[in-house]
């Protein structure tokens, strides 16, 4: 166990998986000579050479498709998008090729690959660089979508994603890369599709994922000072979603707030609330509330950006409302 950054945890995962399986290679913009736009791939070119750590032209659709072709014929590509904002250019390959080839071929051709990169807003990057895509991506059968919120989960989920026989999308966070946490050395696998209770309390459940896990924990700390103890359920994987864990926490606390990074319309929270109303109808003591990004493209100005993003204060307010403590 060592205290390392989220960035280094991802780097460890890539290095270890490339060491144990020579079918694994990393491809993307600036991953090799530049060592990664966010330095996640630092040192990998030196260790594995240019055949396995491949710089591409700025050609997202093209190299996403190259990954698909390599995967269906037996390799295990890790395709890095410099950010998921740029991955929109590649979505045809992600959605129409990677996600569907197994099904369209009647089970003959699976696509064992990873698409990964930072997702969601950082700081003042403006409208086109500040978007959280997990609700778009989790819509598609055939894909698995993971959103690690801590360094340990980043390592464990990425390693599992690389070993998975399906296309797995790993949504990281630019604002998470420098966060630190204890990460097990060597073999550390976090199973896909299994949520993790990051904090235990009995008054309310905060159900969240990805970058919002840290926000939820901040909110939980604040609430604890007021004597409100919450469950913080980190979904970790949003497709397939751990429905049993959602049902368990809601049945325990009878109240829930769903916290997500992206926009609200057809968001992850909408899906979670559907599960809750269906499975926990008689368990609820209050309507489930959602905290999400304001329904606007991300603004540049500091104050507007702050106002748009979900944060601890908004989460606390929502928890207090579902506990009828806000009046």
């Amino acid at each position, binding site marked *: 166990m060592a205290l390392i950054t989220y960035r280094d945890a991802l780097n460890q995962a890539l290095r270890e998986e490339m060491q144990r399986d020579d079918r694994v290679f990393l491809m993307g913009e600036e991953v090799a000579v530049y060592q990664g736009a966010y330095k996640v791939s630092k040192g990998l070119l030196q260790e594995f050479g240019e055949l396995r750590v491949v710089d591409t032209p700025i050609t997202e659709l093209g190299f996403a498709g190259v990954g698909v072709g390599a995967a269906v*014929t037996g390799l295990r590509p890790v395709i890095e998008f410099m950010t998921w904002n740029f991955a929109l250019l590649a979505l045809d390959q992600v959605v129409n090729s990677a996600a569907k080839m197994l099904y369209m071929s009647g089970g003959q051709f699976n696509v064992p690959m990873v698409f990964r990169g930072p997702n969601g807003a950082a700081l003042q990057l403006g409208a086109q660089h500040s978007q959280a895509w997990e609700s778009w991506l989790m819509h598609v059968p055939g894909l698995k979508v993971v959103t690690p919120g801590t360094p340990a989960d980043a390592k464990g989920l990425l390693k599992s994603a690389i070993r998975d026989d399906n296309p797995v999308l790993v949504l990281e966070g630019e604002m998470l890369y420098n966060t630190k946490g204890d990460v097990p050395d060597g073999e550390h696998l976090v199973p896909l599709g299994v949520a993790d209770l990051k904090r235990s309390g009995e008054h309310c459940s905060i159900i969240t994922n990805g970058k919002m896990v840290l926000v939820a924990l901040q909110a939980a700390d604040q609430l604890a000072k007021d004597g409100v103890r919450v469950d913080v359920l980190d979904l970790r994987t949003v497709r397939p979603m751990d429905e049993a864990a959602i049902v368990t926490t809601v049945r325990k606390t009878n109240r829930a707030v769903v916290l997500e990074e992206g926009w609200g319309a057809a968001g992850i929270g909408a899906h979670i609330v559907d599960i809750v109303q269906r499975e926990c109808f008689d368990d609820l003591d209050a309507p489930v509330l959602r905290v999400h990004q304001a329904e606007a493209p991300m603004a540049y100005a500091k104050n507007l950006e702050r106002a748009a993003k979900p944060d601890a204060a908004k989460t606390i307010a929502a928890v207090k409302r579902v506990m009828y403590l806000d009046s």
Partner: protein
Amino acid sequence: MTKTRPIASSTPPSGSVAAPAAPTPSVVATATAAPLPAGGVSDGASRTLHRELLRTMLLQRRFEERCAEAYALGKIGGFCHLYIGQEGTGTGAISVLRPDDYVITTYRDHAQAIARGIAPRAVMAELFGKAAGCSHGKGGSMHLFSREHNFLGGHGIVGANIPIATGVAFGIKYRGGDQVCLCFFGEAAVNNGAFHEALNMAGLWKLPVIYVIENNRYGMGTALERASAVNDIAERARAYDMPRAVVDGQDVLAVRRVVGEAVQRARTDHLPTLIESRTYRFMGHSMSDAVAGTYRSRAELDEQLKRDPIALLRAYMHERDEITEAEVAQLDAEVRAQCEDAWQFADASPEPALDALLRDVTIDGTADDGRHATGNGSQPGGASPPSGSTS
């Protein structure tokens, strides 16, 4: 079942032209409006080869005539794109491949699947939406697949198969193999970003892929001249420092020669090639498109019908005394019987069981637990299709 695969050659075709030297590759073959070369002395090997090519093209033609019939009867649903008129390209190109090479194509894929050796029964059953289809009824007309034949699918989004082919070639190079990937697409795809992105990487990384443009002149109903700033579309290879060729797609032997050279270049030097095969679609774009009248004239179609790839090869073989009329009739009767057998088989086959609906959405488990070996792709047919997986 009846063997339908054309002769596959693992040796260089005769009359190869050396790869043009980088960085200014030249056209290595040119289109010709002339009929097939005049007859000459025929040897046994070429006679056998020509018969196989003729058999394959006849089988494709009769098969798709039955497809049109089945579509009219409602036995085939959805979109259905026929290859009639273009048989020379797919047949000639695929005939030079080894079994361990790869083929990837578009939604106009029935005839290429047959040329690759997929049983007509399995193709027809797929078109009929039956469990015995080559994609188990989950793909349909546009998505024919066969792992056994390294046939990586019909793909329904114009241009999308081009980056995938490039990735297959990347994988071959990664493993140090000497296979090639043959990638078909229409001339309308060259205006698509995926084409340019993929060809740039293939040129940059020197990948063993052969891109075959099936230039049938129309992207649905939009003529090449109305869609592309450059009408000599093979020239686009210049932008990617890639050898290029133009070939008469109605001349199956010319296609075979030109693709054979490109395959050799890919196998030995890991060089990609862009080939423009000039052909013509005798039918509409799909079943809802009239054969002529809107975007092309009846006169144009009639003119093109004179250069039917099957008739041209037949005439060539007659000239060389390689086949008699009676033998052609016999061959035709054989492939018609094969198509009738495929129809009857498909018609009698059961639909997929309803539990297939949620099967093969994802694979459970990993390659490491031994349940689903994904193979390394270098041993075609070595890996059996995974089964029993669920979402």
